[in-house]
C-alpha cells in the first residue's frame, strides 16, 4: 500500500521518499529567490494549500486527495500557504552562496525572538547546525500558526526543516 518506508517506520520521510513523490526541490530551484517545499506525500482529502494561494500556484484539483503540485512560475513566495497547511508540511527555502534561509511553521510556546541564535534540526529532530532567527510572524490571519524565518549554513539546506523544540 505504501512505498514510504521511513515515514511509516520512523515518522518522517527520507530525502529519497520526498524525491520519489516529487516533493524535494533541486539545489538549482533552491538557489536565488528559492522556492516552496511541500512535504505532503500521502493521499489524504485536503486542499487548504490550493485555496490559500492568491496566485493559484498550487493545484490539488479533484479528487482532493491528489498531492499538491506547484507552478513555480506563478509562485510569488508570499508564504500564505505555510500557516494554511493543517499538516504544517510547507516551508519556503532559499540559498545564496554560504547562507540559506528557511521560513517554517511553529506552534509552540515560547516563540523565539528576532536575532536569537537557535539549533536547526532535521526531520528526525536531530540538531545539524546553528541558525539565527531573522523574523517571526504571528499575525491573526495565521490562525495561531507562527511563521519563523531563520538563516543557517547552506550546506544543510536539504536536511534542515525546523528549529529544536525546547521543553521549557
Amino acid at each position, binding site marked *: 500500500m505504501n512505498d514510504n518506508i521511513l515515514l511509516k517506520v520512523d515518522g518522517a520521510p527520507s530525502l529519497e521518499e520526498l524525491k520519489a513523490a516529487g516533493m524535494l526541490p533541486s539545489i538549482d530551484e533552491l538557489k536565488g529567490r528559492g522556492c516552496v517545499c511541500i512535504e505532503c506525500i500521502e493521499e489524504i482529502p485536503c486542499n487548504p494549500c490550493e485555496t490559500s494561494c492568491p496566485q493559484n500556484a498550487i493545484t490539488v484539483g479533484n479528487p482532493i486527495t491528489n498531492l499538491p503540485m506547484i507552478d513555480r512560475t506563478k509562485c510569488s513566495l508570499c508564504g500564505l500557504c505555510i500557516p494554511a497547511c493543517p499538516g504544517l508540511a510547507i516551508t519556503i527555502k532559499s540559498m545564496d552562496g554560504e547562507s540559506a534561509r528557511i521560513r517554517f511553521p511553529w*506552534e*509552540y*510556546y*515560547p*516563540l523565539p525572538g528576532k536575532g536569537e541564535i537557535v539549533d536547526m534540526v532535521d526531520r528526525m529532530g536531530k540538531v545539524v547546525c546553528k541558525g539565527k532567527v531573522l523574523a517571526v510572524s504571528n499575525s491573526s490571519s495565521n490562525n*495561531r500558526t*507562527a511563521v519563523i524565518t531563520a538563516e543557517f549554513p547552506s550546506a544543510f539546506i536539504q536536511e534542515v526543516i525546523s528549529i529544536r523544540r*525546547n521543553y*521549557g
Partner: protein
Amino acid sequence: MEEQNCMNGRIEKHPILGDLTPVQEVTIYFEGKPIKARAGEPIMAALLAAGVGVFRYTKKGSPRRMFCGIGRCTDCIMNVDGLPGVRTCVTEVRDGMKIERQSGVGIWRVSDSEGDMHGER
C-alpha cells in the same frame, strides 16, 4: 528561556489556547487541606494542579487516580461532602467542598429519618 508552566502543573501559557484567563477562585478542602480551585472546573483538575498524586486506594491498598477523564470508567471516584463514589472528573468544584480519599467502595451512610439515599450533589 522562558518557562511555560508554573510548578503546580497549570498550563499558564499556550501557543493555541492563549494565556490562561483568570476566573473566580474557590477553596476546596482535600483531606482537610485547603486548595485553590478555578470556578467551573472538575475536582480532578483542581487536585491534579495542586499535585495530588493518589485519589483513592482499593480494598487491597492499590493506589488509583484517573483513567478516562470523561465520566465513564469510575477510576477517579472520591468521597465528596460525605458521599463516596463521586466521579471527580465530571463533578464541578464548589466553594467549601470537602474531598477525601475513600478506601474500596467507601463508607455509605443512610439518612436515619427518611431511610433513603441522596443523589450526588
